[in-house]
């Protein structure tokens, strides 16, 4: 285990050290101490390493991650795992707004609650939230899966494309063009796999599936009021 004290090392050197790890590095386990809510921790990583951040983080922790597993032992500030490509980000506490925004791949697990705009414009990332999510989540979400074990806030999935949304609790309101859809066996399979990988004990049968009604894909004057 390599330990980096952020206060002693500084952010640029910390990120440069982690970014310099190659695919076959033998230094696979890293721990960051004295995070103290700092911004842009462990961003742009591109190696199969395991990084644990002790404490809560500020803006954009784990942004643009490829391959790495990043664990936050605390809560995450805005934009955690933004534009993640692959790998895993696991947050023990809560996540602030736009967690996993624009993510292309990988798995984001939030053990607490996520606030507004979770998974906004997601493009293939899988997000599993053990608690609740805030308003405008999965806005314009294009692909990937958003799993919510608790409740969803207002305007879930507004202007949704082809991302799948699974919610176990209540949905305060659905956004434009987002509808409840039939849960078929293949969806239960996807959900079971995601819950397993996130280490969350929940029954796929208790969830409802939401997706796009595909009415806003092309301009139709009859839909003008929905824009």
């Amino acid at each position, binding site marked *: 285990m390599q330990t980096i004290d952020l206060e002693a090392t500084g952010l640029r050197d910390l990120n440069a050290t982690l970014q310099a790890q190659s695919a076959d590095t033998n230094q696979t386990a890293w721990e960051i101490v004295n995070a103290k*809510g700092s911004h842009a921790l462990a961003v742009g990583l591109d190696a199969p390493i395991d990084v644990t951040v002790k404490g*809560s983080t500020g803006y954009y922790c784990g942004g643009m991650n490829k391959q790495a597993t990043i664990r936050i032992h605390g*809560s995450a500030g805005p934009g955690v795992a933004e534009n993640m490509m692959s790998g895993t980000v696991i947050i023990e506490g*809560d996540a602030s707004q736009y967690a996993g925004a624009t993510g292309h791949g990988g798995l984001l697990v939030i053990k607490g609650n996520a606030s507004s705009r979770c998974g906004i414009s997601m493009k293939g990332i899988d997000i599993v939230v053990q608690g609740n999510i*805030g*308003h405008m989540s999965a806005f314009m979400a294009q692909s990937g899966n958003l799993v919510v074990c608790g409740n969803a806030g207002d305007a879930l999935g507004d202007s949704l494309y082809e991302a799948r949304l699974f919610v176990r609790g209540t949905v305060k309101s659905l956004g434009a063009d987002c509808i409840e859809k039939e849960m078929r066996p293949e969806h239960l399979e996807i959900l079971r796999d995601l819950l397993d990988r996130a280490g969350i004990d929940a029954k796929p049968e208790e969830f409802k599936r939401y997706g796009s009604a595909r009415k806003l894909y092309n301009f139709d004057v009859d839909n003008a009021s929905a824009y």
Partner: protein
Amino acid sequence: MCGIVGLFLKDKALEPQLGALLTDMLITMTDRGPDSAGIAIYGTDADGNSKLTVQSPNPDADFKGLAAELGKAIGTKVAQRDKDTHTVLEMPAEKIAEAREALKTLRPDTRVMSTGDTMEIYKEVGLPKDVASRFDVAKMSGTHGIGHTRMATESAVTTMGAHPFSTGSDQCLVHNGSLSNHNSLRRQLAREGILTETMNDTEVGAAYLTWKMREGATLGEALESSLDDLDGFFTFVVGTKDGFGVVRDPIACKPAVMAETDQYVAFGSEYRALVNLPGIETARVWEPEPATVYFWNH
């Protein structure tokens, strides 16, 4: 972008440290607002006296002999405590309005920062660390306080454009965000007799709360109605003589984190503003919900 910090103490033992804790929080928020900073601090009640905190661009000339001249003009004893560009004038509460009028002729260049039994507002242009050290905020004690670091968007970088804004006796407001209907609201408030001094959007927000409370609303109710009447982005933190409140607009894109322990309630625009508070590791930390009024009272 702006930074907000606030600390509402439940444990009296922390009161001597209030200024030092707030100064540390304020300086951490420097990169959210490096152009000006301010602080509202609720100190000890001055035995039936009230405080008038006044700022001057020429403190040497304006503050010399001020207490004596003002006391003579309004017929009472006035105590004076200078702090850099600000001075705190203490006098019987019923004389405050008269003193404000007298200042207009005695010292026309001075600006009233705040009035109240316990609240003093200090604000200036400059880096938060410089502003805090000019006023020696770290040495202040008190029951609660609110600080702001400003990155101006809606009006000029001036002392009067800095936060906190006073919304009435012992009431203050700080704001992160921008209001888009402040011009029409300013005209509407002027018709109601509520005058603003600057072109700043936040001052209109503060004046709006003053108006609502004048019409009989409690601060909590005034904050609730601000959700309907103010258009734009806002995270507001407000202080009263014995209370501390937070509200965010329904979109809630301006960040906010809160922490509560048996000793205090704390607010920060970001978590890193809270990291040096005692017992933060075990505090309940959460993000305040959109369009929800939070309020604590002593």
